[in-house]
């Protein structure tokens, strides 16, 4: 029987959630035995090679590109999991949601004390920034949520093993944290 496939991506996140996946340490080699990695920063696969069982999403959507990537994950993954506060609630990047985008741009590129002859970057090569940062479930249907900033390595590991082996997840209180 072919191994189930797993895909991962980082949208508007800090990559801390991916780092937490790496914090399963030696178990990463075991994970490679349990699953085959499909489209993911972990390899060079260009496009989904077929339907994946699990897609792990880090980060919310802050620009149009994030939305596109998230939609393609929904299309190609049977189970989609929001990993971490950014994916679940927008996280820290969504602190800009109450502030007009222009004020944020002005502060960085015109008013910054080290800026010399500032200007607002504006080029066809730069993508469109969304009016606010959207959590993933506002864009597509999400099946599971793993909380934490980032979620503990043990939480990610236990949840994945449970999904992949069809066993109930063993998630003791201690591994579920919200910071």
């Amino acid at each position, binding site marked *: 029987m072919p191994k189930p496939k797993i895909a991962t991506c980082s949208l508007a996140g800090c990559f801390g959630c991916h780092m937490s996946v790496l914090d399963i340490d030696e178990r990463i080699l075991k994970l490679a035995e349990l699953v085959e990695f499909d489209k993911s*920063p972990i390899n060079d696969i*260009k496009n989904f090679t077929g339907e994946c069982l699990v897609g792990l999403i880090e980060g919310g959507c802050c620009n149009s590109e994030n939305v596109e990537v998230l939609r393609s994950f929904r299309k190609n993954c049977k189970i989609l999991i929001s990993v971490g506060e950014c994916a679940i609630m927008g996280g820290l990047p969504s602190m800009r949601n109450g*502030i007009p985008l222009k004020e944020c741009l002005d502060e*960085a590129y015109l008013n*910054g004390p080290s800026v*010399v002859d500032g200007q607002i970057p504006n080029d066809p090569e730069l993508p469109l920034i969304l009016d606010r940062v959207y959590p993933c479930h506002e864009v597509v249907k999400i099946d599971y949520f793993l909380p934490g*900033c980032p979620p503990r390595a043990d939480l990610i590991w236990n949840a994945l093993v449970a999904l992949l082996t069809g066993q109930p997840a063993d998630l003791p209180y201690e591994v579920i944290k919200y910071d």
Partner: protein
Amino acid sequence: MMKKVTIHPVTRVEGHGKVTIAIDEDGHVERTRLHIVEFRGFERFVQGRPYWEAPVVVQRLCGICPVSHHLAAAKACDVIVGVGPDGLSPTAEKMRRLMHYGQMLQSHALHFYHLCSPDLLFGFDSDVTKRSVLAVAAEYPELAVRGVLLRKYGQELIQATAGKKIHGTGAIPGGINKHLTVTERDHFLKDIDQMIAWSVASVELVKKVHSKNPAFFDSFGSFPSNHLSLVRKDGALDFYHGNIVAVDKDGNKILDQVDYANYLDYIGEAVRSWSYMKFPFIKSLGKANGWYRVGPLARLNTCDFIPSELAQKEFEIFRAYTGGKPNNFSLHYHWARMIEMLHSAEVIKSLLNDPDLMAGELVRTGKKVNEGVGLIEAPRGTLFHHYRINEQDQITMCNLIVSTTNNNDPMNKAVEVTAKQFLEGREVTEGLLNHIEVAIRAYDPCLSCATHALGQMALDVELVDAAGRRISRLTRGV
């Protein structure tokens, strides 16, 4: 007819990037640009938050080296609470150093083993299926395990000092919030000699890769530049604290031990329309010539010695290779990085043997002021944090110049040089794309460690004619 080559996205931690390359009708590379395409707005949205939140909040910029942001912000807050950079208790400073050198160890191990080793072991244009850490694990299992365990050791040190492996809370304005326990110390002491031995082996590995084809290794994506870093008062390499030193390509001092509290007198940032990442430069040299490199290569080019035995020996070999002059070879970042990893392991050992970690004053206070600057040498280079606050302790101004931003011009230069070396007059192939990646990757930029922390950067190269029609397209991992 002008062709345009687009590499998109070059993914990252602080956002996503892409490369555009314009090629004229004779196949010459006319113009290259590394665009950083994500914008977050930290400088604005932390305004109104109390200053003591900064060390915890701002580290969410980057999950790969959060400790750097945590500590740079804490150092700025030390100034605000009137303790100042030299006023911490010995316990607080040493605990922070242990946290920071632990992070140096984990970040350098991650970059070298998880990200770059496939390029160095299998070749820059090896088969795509080979270019991942899992392929390294299949062929050189002992190397992959070494990388995983070095990183794990560093992450556990961070957990013991900061409370969490990622986004911890150990440093607070004026100090630190815990001691190291005897159990923790013994746990780390047990394995530290192994970490030192593995670090020595890592330096040897880079030297071995280099010795296979020194001419190619030296010339790949190389160019002369200025170099900048924090250096201890006596000229020693120091990742936690020091003054700003900058040298030019020949080693002449541009900035000599200047106090970083006055960084605005020396450093400016240019903005270009085509990138969300700014372009820092040394003001006295101007926008065109003032750009500089930061990170491991720059640090070894600006310091006079390394204050630990084994790393100092390796430093002497490193310096002798360029006759004592600054080393301007881009791929030598890897060599410098592994020497720094060795130094970190040695410093960790001496800190673990220091009783101050387990007892003593944790926090100090002083007379509050309304502004603070904190600088630190992050794994990827000099990191600037600067805050102003109001009477209510709310942040009113936040200025961040992150390590990867300092390397913005050099990374653009590296793309240009590599494109000219390998793309001129040739057809774009997958292997050539990886050459551009290898050049960017040497800088260990957050924009790339984002994705290729786990493997390869995603690339999308488009050949477009002058009218914007697509001629050909090659994608990978997009």
